[in-house]
């Protein structure tokens, strides 16, 4: 046992992870002691998250650290390694988890499905496994933690397991997670190149032929893509996220999806020694298709958590596009540009973790206060739940990619990396750049549409149901959790130079270049190349808007007056306004449904003018589900029916099978 003073960062991290596991065990021991779980264990988990955040931040610059845990199978110990890439993702995981845990303190209630103590175990095992995934340094340990992550989150998703749809969603999630895991496992199999040594150190040393390298890349893209929710492997996301309790959806969407991004980065830039240009094109195409698909579907949703789930698909798409661009540049040896694209992607990883967690726990607070998830039954909550509304607004603005918040910085950097392209060696790729930039701009603008719908329908307008008038605002612990995430969104927006300094060691590790020195030289302004080329100063930006806000406010009062009269709404003189006359979520999504009609599988029931009781019904389905998954399901069912023919249920038949098999074996196997 070494003295505490000589502990390296990795030891402290393992301590935090052990702490999380301990909290989980205490939770199980105190299975029904709800008070203990809510008021002690979850806050303690949150504090551990904040501590891990700090340790990971200081570990970013510390250089790689390795450790071998004498756990696991005999002769197959767990290898751990902490480098800048893992430290960065640990920061993201711990940062978001701290806020979500604080919120979870007030969220879980008695008597809903799984007992709180067991939830506490699953929740903290989930956190610990996510932290260990990014620390794992051999395929065996990686897969163990990866599966632990999948299983613990599966049990969290089905926390309300008495509802059949939730069980179904959980099953779908588990299925896709395992299909993805097979891809990852095969990828590691290719990467170890017949040496039989599954440590990442060995994989790094291997020089794979381009064919095998590409195979490994495609397997990784498939495996991690299934976890990240890349089209067409996204189907589990919109089912599992709404089914899970809100803090869990926040963690799954904000954090767990990022472990898949981590996996892609680890395989592409660290374990594989080469990058081929077409990998980048594949990732760009997949990413953009995912982003466009996600945002268009998000606009058509009528369930607030499904809407956010689709918005996560969109963000994952943007992330993959950014990474694809980095791969492309890296393959051509343009390291500074690769660093720029990668910085954009990593920035988006961080800001998405914060704003999406914030939005999900915002919906959690709304769900708690009203019991409604359907956008058609909400509205006007800004007046009864002001705290939640205002804090969610920050997340909404960040998610819509608006300055001066975090989402915009990532988008800005990504677009800069397109514009700073001095010309790739192939004219085909050069033609691709404007089209890709245009699609990214379109997705960003559409996400603004989605977010206005999300916030406007839930929090603004008149309450669509009477019970919403009694909705209660979030409690103190929930507010603390949300405030932490709000602070993250704002800080990421206003201090890009600081955070790019933190991303700098990661890009240096992966693509041997970084923006840190360029950016640090220009102080408050974010300058990727030079001031003449491009610059963005969020603080100055905010000051500009805020100053003119304040000056206008004061001057109007100085020269005129501040009189205000309240009366009934004007609405062109129409007096008989009811809450039913506002746009519904369906109505707000209608233009998008119409413009992007080929994306959707729509079934509509329109009333005729002569209907006594007119009914309007529209259901929006997913082509991928109907064209790919259902046929596969039908084929599997058909195949198993054929196999079922063998099953006669008569002992004589089975004896005959054994006899035939024996003869066949004897024919084949000769002594």
């Amino acid at each position: 046992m070494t003295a505490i003073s000589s502990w390296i960062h990795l030891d402290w991290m393992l301590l935090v992870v052990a702490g999380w596991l301990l909290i989980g065990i205490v939770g199980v021991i105190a299975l029904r002691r709800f008070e203990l779980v809510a008021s002690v264990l979850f806050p303690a988990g949150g504090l551990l998250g904040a501590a891990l955040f700090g340790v990971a931040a200081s570990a970013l610059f510390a250089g790689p650290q390795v450790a071998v845990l004498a756990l696991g199978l005999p002769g197959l110990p767990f290898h751990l390694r902490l480098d800048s890439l893992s430290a960065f993702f640990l920061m993201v995981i711990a940062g978001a988890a701290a806020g979500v845990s604080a919120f979870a303190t007030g969220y879980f209630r008695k008597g809903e499905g799984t007992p709180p103590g067991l939830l506490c175990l699953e929740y903290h095992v989930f956190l610990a496994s996510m932290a260990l995934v990014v620390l794992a340094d051999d395929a065996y340990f990686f897969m163990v933690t990866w599966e632990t992550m999948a299983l613990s989150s599966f049990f969290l998703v089905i926390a309300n397991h008495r509802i059949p749809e939730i069980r179904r969603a959980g099953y779908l999630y588990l299925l896709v997670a395992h299909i993805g895991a097979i891809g990852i496992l095969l990828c590691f199999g290719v990467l170890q190149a017949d040496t039989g040594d599954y440590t990442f150190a060995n994989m790094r040393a291997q020089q794979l032929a381009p064919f095998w390298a590409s195979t490994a890349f495609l397997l990784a893209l498939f495996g991690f893509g299934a976890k990240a929710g890349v089209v067409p492997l996204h189907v589990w996301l919109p089912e599992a996220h709404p089914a899970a309790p809100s803090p869990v959806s926040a963690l799954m969407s904000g954090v767990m999806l990022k472990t898949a991004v981590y996996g892609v980065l680890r395989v592409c830039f660290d374990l594989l020694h080469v990058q081929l240009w077409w990998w980048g094109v594949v990732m760009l195409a997949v990413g953009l298709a995912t982003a466009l698909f996600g945002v268009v579907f998000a606009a058509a949703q009528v369930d607030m958590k499904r809407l956010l789930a689709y918005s996560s698909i969109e963000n994952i798409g943007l992330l993959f596009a950014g990474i694809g661009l980095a791969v492309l540049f890296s393959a051509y040896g343009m390291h500074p540009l690769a660093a720029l694209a990668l910085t954009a992607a990593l920035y988006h990883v961080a800001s998405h973790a914060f704003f999406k967690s914030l939005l999900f726990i915002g919906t959690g607070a709304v769900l708690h206060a009203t019991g409604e998830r359907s956008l058609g039954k909400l509205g006007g909550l800004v007046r009864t739940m002001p705290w939640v509304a205002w804090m969610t607004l920050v997340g909404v603005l960040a998610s819509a990619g608006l300055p001066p918040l975090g989402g915009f910085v990532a988008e800005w950097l990504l677009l800069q990396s397109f514009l700073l392209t001095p010309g790739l060696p192939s004219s085909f790729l050069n033609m691709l750049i404007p089209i890709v930039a245009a699609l990214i701009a379109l997705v960003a603008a559409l996400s603004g549409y989605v977010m206005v719908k999300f916030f406007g329908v839930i929090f603004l307008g008149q309450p669509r149901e009477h019970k919403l008038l009694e909705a209660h605002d979030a409690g103190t612990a929930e507010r603390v959790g949300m405030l932490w995430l709000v602070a993250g969104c704002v800080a990421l927006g206003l201090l890009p130079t600081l955070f790019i300094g933190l991303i700098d060691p990661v890009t240096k590790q992966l693509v041997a270049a970084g923006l840190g020195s360029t950016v640090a030289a220009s102080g408050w302004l974010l300058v990727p190349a030079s001031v003449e080329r491009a610059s963005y100063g969020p603080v100055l930006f905010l000051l500009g808007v805020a100053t003119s806000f304040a000056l206008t406010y004061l001057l109007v009062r100085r020269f005129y007056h501040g009189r205000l009269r309240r009366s009934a709404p004007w609405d062109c003189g129409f007096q008989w306004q009811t809450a039913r006359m506002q746009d519904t979520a369906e109505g707000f999504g209608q233009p998008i449904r119409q413009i992007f009609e080929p994306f959707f599988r729509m079934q509509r029931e329109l009333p005729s003018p002569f209907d006594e009781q007119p009914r309007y019904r529209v259901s929006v389905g997913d082509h991928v589900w109907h064209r790919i998954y259902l046929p596969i399901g039908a084929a599997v069912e058909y195949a198993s029916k054929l196999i079922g023919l063998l099953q006669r249920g008569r002992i004589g038949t089975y004896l005959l099978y054994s006899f035939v098999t024996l003869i066949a074996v004897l024919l084949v196997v000769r002594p």
Partner: protein
Amino acid sequence: MSLLGLTSQLLEIMAALLLAPLLTGWVNQCRAWLQNRSAPGLLQPYRVLHKLFHKDSVVAERASPLFLGAPYIVFGCMVLACAIVPTLSTDLPLAPAADAIALVGLFALARVFISLAAMDVGTSFGTLGARREMLVGFLAEPALLMVLFSASMISKSTSLTTIVETLGHRELAIHPSLAFAGVAFTIVSLAENARIPVDNPATHLELTMIHEALILEYSGRHLALVEWAASLKLFAYSCIGLALFFPWGVAEAHAPLELLLALPVLVLKLAIGGVLLALLETVSAKMRIFRVPEFLATAFLLAVIGLLVHILLEV
């Protein structure tokens, strides 16, 4: 930050604030003449603003602080937009705060706030306006970005001042990409400023209105600010158009004399632009709202084609 830079920055903001209503008045006057009506005075927008500021603000009972704050935010955004677009000088201390992409973000921020404010009271017209505004926005915004990218690619910079300096100093060469971008920009600015054929600033017809539906619940000083912000937006868009396509006569750093000359040049350019806008509005008919996405998608595609043309022909 030089004293001259500070002066030109302040001068530019003041010029925007004062000239913007005048530009709106000028366009209205030209339109009236072209339509054979007797025109309101050139100073009518100022009188309207003065009147509105004097009136009490009547606000719906259930309006939240978001509704009350949004006009100030939108106004602030538009002031900043006018401050960073180089109209009089390219020596602007505020310009590094936001480049072309951030400028588009600034417009988007204003749009999101005014749309949210329109949904706040929960009337049928308000939500209708918000939905239509966001519909126009999600197509116009990427189109505008692509237009700006065309200019950025020519000058290899997204900084607006660098774009203007480069474009202003180049020889009179024909850039085919800028032609595409010009058409796209015209369509986008018509849509973004609620002009015919996308919207009609002169009616309150529910089938067609976008901008008027958004601000239906505002009155008094709030309405004044929103209207002023709308004219500032028209001014900013006109200035972006001038900066991209007619960037001559803008003063540069260390040239105080040029700064004096820049103002009359700007007024002249805006006057001509106003006539053209009125002419364009008079000869075109209002479009059905379902046609608007196609119209804007055309602009978006033209802008992308412009970028492709740039890469194919001009690199």
